[in-house]
């Protein structure tokens, strides 16, 4: 499934469901009614969008810190010849939730999510030991906004 195959209903559905599903008894029926489609059609389309990977997931977005966990953003300046070795070493840690290559001297950026806030420091020390590189730890000091919305 590609972007060009999305019809108007798919697009309205994607836009509407990025905003959120209401916490009511028949939530999909409520959204379907607002979009002017049947509940069955909405569920079919949503499943197809999820299965095809247009949507990465559909469900509750939990707040890691409020679940009692630790969360941070960290970066490494990886020498180019070592890049693949370091990707492997860093990704091997189950606490690494996301990892992106970015265009900068700090060329590897990853999110650590741990069982407890105290565990963050231990994982960072272990990553430094495994890679031989200093980790730049950049925990959020203040959150101004979190709301991904990509209209299609």
């Amino acid at each position, binding site marked *: 499934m590609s972007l060009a195959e999305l019809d108007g209903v798919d697009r309205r559905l994607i836009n509407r469901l990025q905003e*959120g599903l209401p916490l009511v008894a028949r939530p999909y029926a409520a959204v379907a009614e607002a979009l002017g489609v049947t509940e069955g059609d909405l569920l079919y389309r949503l499943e197809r969008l999820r299965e095809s990977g247009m949507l990465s997931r559909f*469900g509750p977005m939990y707040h890691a810190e409020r679940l009692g966990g630790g969360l941070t953003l960290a970066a490494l300046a990886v020498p180019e010849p070592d890049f693949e070795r370091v990707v492997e070493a860093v990704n091997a840690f189950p606490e690494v939730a996301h990892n992106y290559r970015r265009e900068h001297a700090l060329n590897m950026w990853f999110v650590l999510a741990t069982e407890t806030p105290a565990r963050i420091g231990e994982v960072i020390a272990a990553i430094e030991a495994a890679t031989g590189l200093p980790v730049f730890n950049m925990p959020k000091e203040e959150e101004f906004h979190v709301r991904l919305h990509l209209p299609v």
Partner: protein
Amino acid sequence: MSVSICRSSQGSVRDALSPDERGLDERDRAIVLATQAGLPLVPDPWGAVGRELGLTGEEVLARMRAMEARGVIRRIAAVPNHYRLGYVANGMTVWDVDDAEVERLGREVAAIEGVSHCYRRPRHLPHWPYNLFAMLHGRSREEVESQAEALRARLGEACRDHRILYSSRILKKTGLRLARRAPQA
């Protein structure tokens, strides 16, 4: 991810939690575990989750409402795949903003259309002078650059320098996951 919660055997961990976190009990935790990979796509998703856990659909819905009210659930939503939806330019913009102004300006920048995440983070001088982060998403780099220009204008004199760090490769994307069982140790 492996996060454990409500570990009554670990007093020090529990004591460090805020009242919101202490409000999560084992049933809430079971609901988190059952739904973190996704919500069932059936007419009565709360009932479907409840059947798996031995709870009524009404209780699942009531508990999820309570978790949303406490901010444990940000919302229940579709997470788009940026690239598949045509957002091929994803830029982490980073700004070196006067410490005295960053609080106020962070709020203003976060409200600008197109900013998905916005945080204040620590500098690492001399390598990293940037203390304000804002994620931007566009169908082209030109689009991201024009959004960044709007941020630059808003930050004005308080901003000394900025960069746009585009992601050029996803190295890992598993998302956040609670452990199935809380560790005993």
